[in-house]
């Protein structure tokens, strides 16, 4: 039973961790994207369609590509066009709901869900914890690589400069807008992988409510992590655990708490963790503001 709970947690951790790590990259460079929820949803859908057409690896790649593309568009609006990032993010979320609802009707005989055939889903390892996708390994290793890249490499410094002191970065010859575009694209690709993972390597189907607030939980994870990718992994595990706990406890017959209250757990825990974490963390100075040359 405990082993199954660990397996649940690992599977549920992936989309939140991937999205959060992607957003850490974007926020380090100064972009605040609340459209993550929409990116997760669209890439889950695109990944499912891709997997059904060209196989699981292709599906994941298509999901990544779609995530990167949406995020790139967001970045163009928020850098070159000096757009309001909050509004653009809300736009992405609405667009995603509309696009997936529309596409679902177009591509699936069933308006509620699009199932991926068994042979088009990504293979899973059989472990004592249940079936585990190889993507989980990426989600565990990646935060450490990104941590190293942000803290120890020149690329990390450039990203930080673009987020903390865009004027200084500009003076030292860094093209702030290009740096932000690239950061957003990489971050969007990671969120896209997280989304495609949900449909191609976890559930095996996609519904229009699939993202279920995970994009916003990832945003909360970023807040709680203070832009540290390793803490984002810890956050992903924490929220994955509470989501799984609800599902797991629900399988115990005669458990006194109604299922609906257990399903609330990840959201309640998010609120508690974030309200405890604020004040301790600080964010890049230029976060959320477009860089204008004087």
């Amino acid at each position: 039973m405990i082993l199954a709970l660990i397996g649940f947690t690992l599977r549920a951790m992936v989309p939140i961790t991937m999205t959060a790590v992607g957003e850490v990259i974007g926020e380090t460079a100064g972009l605040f994207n609340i459209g993550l929820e929409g990116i997760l949803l669209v890439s889950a859908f695109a990944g499912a369609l891709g997997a059904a057409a060209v196989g699981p690896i292709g599906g994941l790649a298509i999901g990544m590509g779609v995530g990167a593309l949406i995020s790139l568009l967001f970045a163009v609006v928020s850098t070159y066009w000096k757009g309001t990032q909050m509004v653009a993010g809300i736009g992405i979320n609405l667009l995603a709901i509309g696009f997936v609802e529309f596409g679902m009707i177009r591509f699936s005989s069933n308006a509620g869900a699009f199932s991926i055939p068994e042979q088009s889903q990504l293979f899973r390892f059989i472990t004592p914890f249940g079936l585990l996708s190889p993507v989980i390994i990426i989600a565990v290793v990646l935060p450490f690589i990104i941590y190293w890249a942000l803290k120890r490499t020149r690329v990390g410094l450039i990203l930080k400069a673009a987020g903390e002191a865009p004027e200084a970065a500009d003076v030292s010859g860094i093209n702030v807008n290009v740096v932000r575009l690239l950061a957003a694209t990489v971050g969007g690709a990671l969120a896209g992988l997280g989304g495609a993972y949900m449909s191609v390597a976890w559930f095996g189907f996609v519904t229009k409510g699939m993202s279920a607030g995970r994009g916003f939980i990832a945003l909360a994870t970023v807040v709680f992590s203070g832009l540290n990718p390793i803490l984002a992994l810890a956050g992903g595990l924490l929220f994955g655990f509470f989501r799984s706990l609800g599902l797991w406890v629900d399988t115990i017959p005669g458990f006194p708490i109604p299922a609906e209250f257990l399903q609330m757990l990840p959201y309640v825990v998010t609120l508690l963790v974030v309200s405890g974490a604020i004040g301790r963390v600080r964010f890049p100075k230029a976060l959320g503001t477009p860089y204008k040359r004087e």
Partner: protein
Amino acid sequence: MTESQETTSRLLRGVHRTLTGLHPAFESVLAAIVGLLMGALVMWLWGYDPIVAYKSMLLGAFANKWGLADSGAIAAPLVLTALTFSICLRAGMFNIGAEGQLIMGGLATVSVGFFALPPGLHHIVALTFAMIAGGLWSIGPALLKLTRGVHEVISTIMFNWIAHFLSIFLIGTLLINSLSADQTIAVPASAIFSKLVRGTDLTYAIFVAIAFALIVYFVLWHTAIGYEVRAAGLNPSAARYGGIRTKRTMFLAFLLGGLSAGLGATMILMGSSSTHAMYRLHGQLRNIGFDGMAVAMVGRNHPIGILFSAMFFGGLSAGGRLMQLSSSPVPVQMVRLVMGVIVFTMAVPELAKIFPSIKEQTVTLGQGLKRLVTSSRGRRST
């Protein structure tokens, strides 16, 4: 200076003021056009005929009194959820919690089915219940923001999901309809608004939405506290320096927004809905809070603008149902896609800059008018 000259100069000044005042509206229209064009592109890519589809949509929504009435019925709740977003935006916050507050308002609305009251009084009790429930649900994120500094984008979304699961629980237990288990008890006939146009969904409920929008306008633009709310939103540190208690204004904005969203549920449950009950997954209320944000932005976060933009989006949805039945049967879900593109486009400030020729023309027109105005003013002074 002759009388006619003076009249001309006054008129010209009026035109100039109107045109500059219309600038934001112009941007909204431009965004709407971009959204509709993107929609057309998607339709075309998917093998539909966008012209036939849009024609049936627009004719169905705005060409006759039944279409207008159905558009108005869809617009009514959107006005209220849009106000939730706009009030908070004016106070400097992004409240995306209308969805959850609407659900709580809905639960409170159907709960009036537990007791009998004379019509009129029953209406007032139901409206009050809904507002109180929406208001109470907005206090959580407000307090988290003011005491712990939790960003409202995160807290309101979490409250939406908690409301979602709470409502599933309450609909299945406390509020359950003993005759059909997939829905709640219904709002009784003594608390339902009667039809305004026979054969459509439009009821007298829409006047509640319009009245609320006008009240919000009055409070925000013609009272001292409304001035404080807006001042704190524009520049919190300056407002604090000027003696405005910004925590109080933020709290009030959240609360007022919550009342509005809660009231939004009554537009459906006491008005346009055919069953006047909530379903297990509250399908009738789904996404109205989020669509309200699009309405708010296109309405430029002004209550009067919101009335117009809600009518526009209401028309798209009402007409969208007819579009599904046309010879180019585009699914009605297309509307939300168009909505998303419009909001995304609205994020770009001074949209006109991206279309240089349009911008140049407006600028030349504006400058020309300004010259005319100043020259007529100059003549008067001599």
